[in-house]
């Protein structure tokens, strides 16, 4: 445990000295808030919680990049090999990725709340406990997924490309940019298989309807399942050496990460409460005019 903590502190320090990391984890999400609330929201105070939920989700999904990418750099530069001859093991190294990423994400979340409240005059704060739990689980889930990508890719470029593809899919069909109910039916049918969709919808319910944890069972289950399975798989796939290429078997293993979502997506498709909640949330905050603006 002390190894994990020492690594966490060290990696946070390194992340704070990295301008690119600061840009993507702090500046960019806040810029998104201004674009969403300032331009899409068009001064409609009622729309702010809805839009904030989207920005929070987007920030949390950024964990996907976060410190998992730092791990690829460490491996490719031969830095991890030096750690390998110390008693700090693979699990400490992986856990420190998740924890440091979490601590680096929280301040951004808090700043976004403050800006929504003081700059965009959001009236309520939603159910803060639910928001906190969803943000925590979401950050860990997406960072774990990032660890899997870090393990199955062999170079930094490869990591960036795969991350970008997955990130765009998450961004555009989960409801984090385009409101879920506006998406075509077929896209919605696919989106219920993505962890990102549960994160976005869960955050919107917590922000708009003050939904408590008790009513967010399936959302929490999806994120916990994702975090657990992704972490176990990433531990299985972890590599210290740049030379040891990811075996094909590893890429198959990575596919296991989607199993919980297939199950959940199937369950969701059968029972279908996510879609109706998403529609209700959207209707509750949008006057026809701003809905039009959103769809345009």
């Amino acid at each position, binding site marked *: 445990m002390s*190894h994990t903590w020492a690594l966490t502190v*060290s990696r946070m320090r*390194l992340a704070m000295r*990295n301008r690119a990391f600061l840009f993507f984890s702090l500046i960019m999400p806040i810029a998104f808030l201004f674009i969403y609330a300032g331009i899409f929201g068009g001064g409609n105070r009622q729309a702010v919680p809805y839009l904030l939920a989207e920005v929070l989700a987007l920030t949390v999904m950024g964990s996907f990049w976060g410190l998992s990418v730092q791990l690829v750099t460490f491996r490719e530069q031969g830095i991890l090999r030096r750690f390998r*001859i*110390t*008693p700090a093991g693979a699990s400490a190294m992986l856990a420190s990725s998740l924890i440091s990423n979490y601590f680096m994400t929280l301040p951004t979340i808090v700043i976004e709340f403050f800006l929504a409240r003081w700059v965009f005059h959001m009236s309520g704060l939603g159910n803060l406990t639910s928001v906190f739990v969803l943000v925590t689980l979401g950050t860990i889930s997406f960072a774990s997924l990032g660890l899997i990508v870090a393990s199955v890719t062999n170079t930094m470029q490869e990591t960036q490309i795969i991350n970008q593809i997955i990130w765009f899919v998450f961004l555009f069909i989960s409801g984090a940019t385009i409101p879920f109910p506006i998406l075509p039916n077929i896209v919605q049918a696919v989106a219920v298989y993505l962890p990102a969709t549960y994160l976005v919808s869960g955050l919107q319910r917590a922000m708009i309807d003050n939904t408590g944890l008790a009513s967010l069972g399936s959302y929490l289950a999806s994120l916990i399942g994702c975090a657990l399975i992704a972490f176990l798989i990433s531990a299985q796939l972890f590599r*210290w050496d740049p030379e040891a290429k990811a075996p094909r078997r590893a890429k198959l293993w990575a596919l296991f990460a989607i199993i919980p979502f297939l199950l959940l997506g199937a369950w969701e498709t059968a029972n279908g409460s996510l879609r109706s909640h998403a529609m209700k949330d959207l209707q509750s905050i949008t006057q026809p005019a701003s809905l039009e603006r959103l769809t345009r």
Partner: protein
Amino acid sequence: MLSTAVIEVENLTKRYGDVEALRGVSFSVSEGEVFGLLGPNGAGKTTTVEILEGLRTPDHGRVSVCGLDPQRSGAEFKYVIGAALQSTALPDKMRVREALDLFGSFYPRRRGTPELLKRFGLEEKRHAFYAQLSGGQKQRLALAMALVNDPRVVFLDEPTAGLDPQVRREIYGIIEELKKEKKTILLTTHYIEEAERLCDRVAIVDHGNVIALGTPRELKERSGAVTRITVRMSRPETNGALSTLEGVTECRTEADDYLLYSTRVPRTIVALVKHLEERNNELVSLEISAPSLEDIFLELTGRRLRD
């Protein structure tokens, strides 16, 4: 002196695809000994060391360090070893002091960062980023990190490769101090000077085999390599006479110098002096060049070390 083997390597083999990196390497290193693996690049030195460090697994054969198996024993093994890898890399934006603090924090028994900074001449650089250090400073930091847990066994893989001669000598000084502390050290090198100066015993490695093993002195004595005696005299001599002197295998002239190649240097010199006295000739200068490990390598492999 009776000493127990701290490092044991038995019949190690390792293959990377079509390349046979190790073809049955065996040696053992005693407590407090500085043992060198000398050989050209690609001889299998780094593979051997990395198997001992637990970074690689051998295909066949057995290794033990302090009685522990690097692959099977966990933290216990890592507590007793320290290592400077062939290229120790750290994050560019990590500060010197932070690196020593972080790596030190992994061990229950550790040396303090201030002590290490002082000893390795890094005090002034303690707040510098890793990327700002010179090659020599990076190497000193790598050595300091290898000692952060005060290990019993230290692995140094090419500790002076790529450094200029002055910095290299600085590193030699550090390794000699470790030797005084009775650390068991395994170092790899392709510098003859380094092996001769630092190592108690040397294994010459080529193409994945140990082709000679012993103290630098034993290696030279055992080998057929001959010593060259360069002589200058006040009057020229007939070659024929000098080449019949005891121990001389060959005699050549080079400008005013006579080059005598001898297998038994002391006897050759005595015979030479007698011979000159008899002829009323005088010795102007005499120089003895002992065979170096380089000559021995050349003799064993037919190649120079840095070919």
